């Protein structure tokens, strides 16, 4: 990757379309737009394109272990070949009232504003973590992080790992950990997705997905990794040295303890919608996740003309859906920009495929359904906001005062006001407040900067004006 991608001389750039996020959906959207003749900028916060799904191996790891997910490599090559102007190591941290995007280099603070006739938000997702006592111990991580270590970095996450939480992602992570030579003690799944049911029969309509599932289950069976369904982590316990030593799970009325040095846990993913919120698109609240979800049409068009949500930012549906969504948004934008559009037949095929993948996502979330309220019954001493050290009990006490709502609980307790800006705890705070007040689940609104930036980067905005 050329170093020049990190440094941009002009402080105001204008394109036909700007795509924010270089994961599967952003890559496809950028490629489709550029191929049709649009001037496209693709902005990626990390040093490499690919996003979480198509993470790149580098250097010695690449040389020794080979390419990871080669279809990502070819997609990235297509994007570059199509003439997309790629800006890596660049964070979109805010928006102006003229709807330009405020960015800074993540390596040397600067300020570059991007304006465009179409903005495609492909910001991906965050893992949905629900706190429990001991979740802040060293040795506790998310499945996504464990996956990254095992695949992209090819390092062993720990000696013995417990995977817990919920969702189809736990299974490929377990397989990747086994492949990296790590022992997997068990997969603890809160739902009961593998129980035969009428709903499960619905998955017969998605043979490709079933084949993936069968492959994962075969690998886990071969390594004798038990899948414990309808169970959840109750507490993570420290060893004498302060590191994780054991994990207690609740399975019905029974408590079981696993001696492990690593726990990878999350309950699937939450859409990253901060930028969409700052662009003031209409959102609904996903009451299950406690996050705002953009209201879009089938192409990802939001309520703000020219602003599109694609990939996981539009709602969790996985990598395949992300690619189709990127394609569909590009098709609509090509029309908007007066560029050649795909054939009606192609359009119908992609819309059908998108609808089918969305249906699978819905089916999947139904299959993995579990009692989310039980997750929010963690003991009062549980640290919920790790940045500001706020416990579940303090959040409940503020909610029970009688005059606080979701947002004033944040003000009253500082929960969500720390370095991670609520990415870790905000959804849990929303759920806890709702459980105490009986009010509908709210959300912590996004504030600029989307992620902390150097003060000098914000100051650079003015140097540009001068």
């Amino acid at each position, binding site marked *: 990757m050329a170093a020049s991608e990190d440094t941009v001389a002009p402080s105001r750039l204008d394109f036909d379309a700007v795509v924010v996020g270089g994961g599967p959906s952003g890559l496809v959207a950028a490629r489709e737009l550029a191929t049709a003749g649009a001037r496209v900028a693709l902005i990626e916060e990390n040093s490499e394109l690919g996003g979480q799904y198509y993470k790149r191996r580098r250097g010695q790891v690449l040389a020794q272990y080979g390419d990871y997910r080669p279809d990502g490599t070819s997609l990235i090559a297509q994007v570059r070949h199509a003439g997309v102007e790629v800006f890596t190591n660049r964070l979109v941290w*805010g928006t*102006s*009232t003229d709807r330009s995007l*405020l960015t800074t280099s993540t390596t040397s603070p600067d*300020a570059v504003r991007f304006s465009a006739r179409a903005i495609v938000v492909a910001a991906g997702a965050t893992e949905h973590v629900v706190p429990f006592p001991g979740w802040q111990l060293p040795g506790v991580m998310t499945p996504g992080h464990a996956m990254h270590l095992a695949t992209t970095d090819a390092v062993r996450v720990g000696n013995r790992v417990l995977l817990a939480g919920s969702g189809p992602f736990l299974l490929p992570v377990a397989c990747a950990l086994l492949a990296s030579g790590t022992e997997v003690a068990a997969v603890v799944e809160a739902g009961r997705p593998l129980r035969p049911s009428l709903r499960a029969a619905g998955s017969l309509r998605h043979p490709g997905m079933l084949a993936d599932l069968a492959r994962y289950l075969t690998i886990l069976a071969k390594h004798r990794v038990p899948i414990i369904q309808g169970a959840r982590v109750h507490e993570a316990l420290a060893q004498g040295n302060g590191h994780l030593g054991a994990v207690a799970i609740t399975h019905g009325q029974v408590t079981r303890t696993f001696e492990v040095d690593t726990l990878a846990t999350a309950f699937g993913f939450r859409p990253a919608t901060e930028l969409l919120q700052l662009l003031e698109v209409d959102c609904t609240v996903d009451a299950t996740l406690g996050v705002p979800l953009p209201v879009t049409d089938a192409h990802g068009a939001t309520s703000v003309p020219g602003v599109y949500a694609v990939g996981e930012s539009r709602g969790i549906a996985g990598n395949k859906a992300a690619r189709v969504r990127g394609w569909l948004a590009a098709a609509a934008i090509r029309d908007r920009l007066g560029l050649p559009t795909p054939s009606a037949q192609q359009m119908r095929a992609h819309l059908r495929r998108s609808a089918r993948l969305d249906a699978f996502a819905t089916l999947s979330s139904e299959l993995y359904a579990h009692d989310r309220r039980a997750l929010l019954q963690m003991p009062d001493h549980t640290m919920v906001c790790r940045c*500001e050290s706020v416990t579940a009990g303090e959040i409940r006490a503020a909610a029970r*005062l*009688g*005059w*606080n*709502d979701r*947002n*004033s609980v944040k*003000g*009253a307790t*500082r929960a969500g*006001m*720390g*370095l991670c*800006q609520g990415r870790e705890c905000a959804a849990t705070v929303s759920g806890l407040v709702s459980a105490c007040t009986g009010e509908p689940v709210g959300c912590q*609104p996004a*504030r*600029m*900067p989307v992620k*902390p*930036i*150097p*003060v*000098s*980067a*914000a*100051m*650079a*905005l*003015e140097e540009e*004006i001068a």
Partner: protein
Amino acid sequence: MTTTDIVVIGGGILGASTAYQLARAGHRVTVLERGAPNREGSGTTAGNLHIQGIHTRRPGQAVAADNLRFLPLQRTASTLWSQLPDELDADLELTRNGGFMVAETPEQVQELHQKFDLETQLGLTCEIVSGDEARRRMPALSETVIAAEWCAEDGYANPLLVTPAYLGAARRYGAQVEAFSPVTGIEHDGGAYVVRSGHREWSAGVVIDTAGPWIADVAALAGIRLDMSPVAIQMHITTRMPLGTLTCLVQHIGAGMSVKQVGAGNILIGGGWPAEAFRAHGRSRVATDSISGNLHQAAAVLPLLRDLRLLRTWAGPLAATPDEMPVIGEVPSSPGFFVAGGTYAFTLAPLWGLVLRDLVEGNSPLEPVADLGVDRLVLDAVAHQR
């Protein structure tokens, strides 16, 4: 219909302080707040305690505030703030470690001296020091500072804690706090006001309008037309730094700037820079130009800010009056209907609570406020004068 003595409309710091003083004095008080308390100007403000004379022109401000009139009020408020944590039995993160107001040009130094003379006349103890002496006391100050005024009584408190503490104390004295209760109607029914929120009604002899930027909207429900000019301003906060990174509040005589390190360690940077247009519903947007403007201004005086990380920005409303002076008193045409608001309400809140108590009880207030009355903002009277 619930019968009470006093209905306070607005659960910000002024409403909370007033409810506390009146409930403590034995009155039956109900506070009606349209949303959650402390969520607007009172909770989004910087939380400064301005005891030395203020910088009278925040960026974009058309009319300068009158320092001479403010100073005696600030002095009395200073004493009241010192007692507040004990009085409310709450940790307010009250910090009284003094404050600098810096000057970077000879003209600003001159203005500093004029302000100092005024403060001395009024009996406030301040000190003007050279740039070198200021840097000796606070090494974080830049070389561009050529003089500074020091006031040992300046400080700050955590605005997220003060209003809830007032409300908690008011509740202990029997006040009712009705959150999520927007006032939808106010009528005068012979002897008393009837205040409605949806289908609920309260009857009270006295109504106190402390609705901040919505003062005029609430007064309009009672048929009183007031001239207010609410604006939205913005704040900027860095990630946490070790305590002691900044040792006191730093302001500027010639520019909108207030910088300090709050109890949690974050550096809070404000100064009344304008956000985008004030929104009566929902949060106003932070203005990009004010982010860079405020940060440039602050970093010129405190260069270490450049190396910190900006964590969050937010906008909040300011219940400004057209003449930039506080408003407090009874509406002449509507006996029993009181209004309190205006800028610097955070600093003045402990005082305004007591003054409103005195006015409601028909006593002479702790500080004379007749010149800050409502009549100057009553629209029909203003039109008549014109």
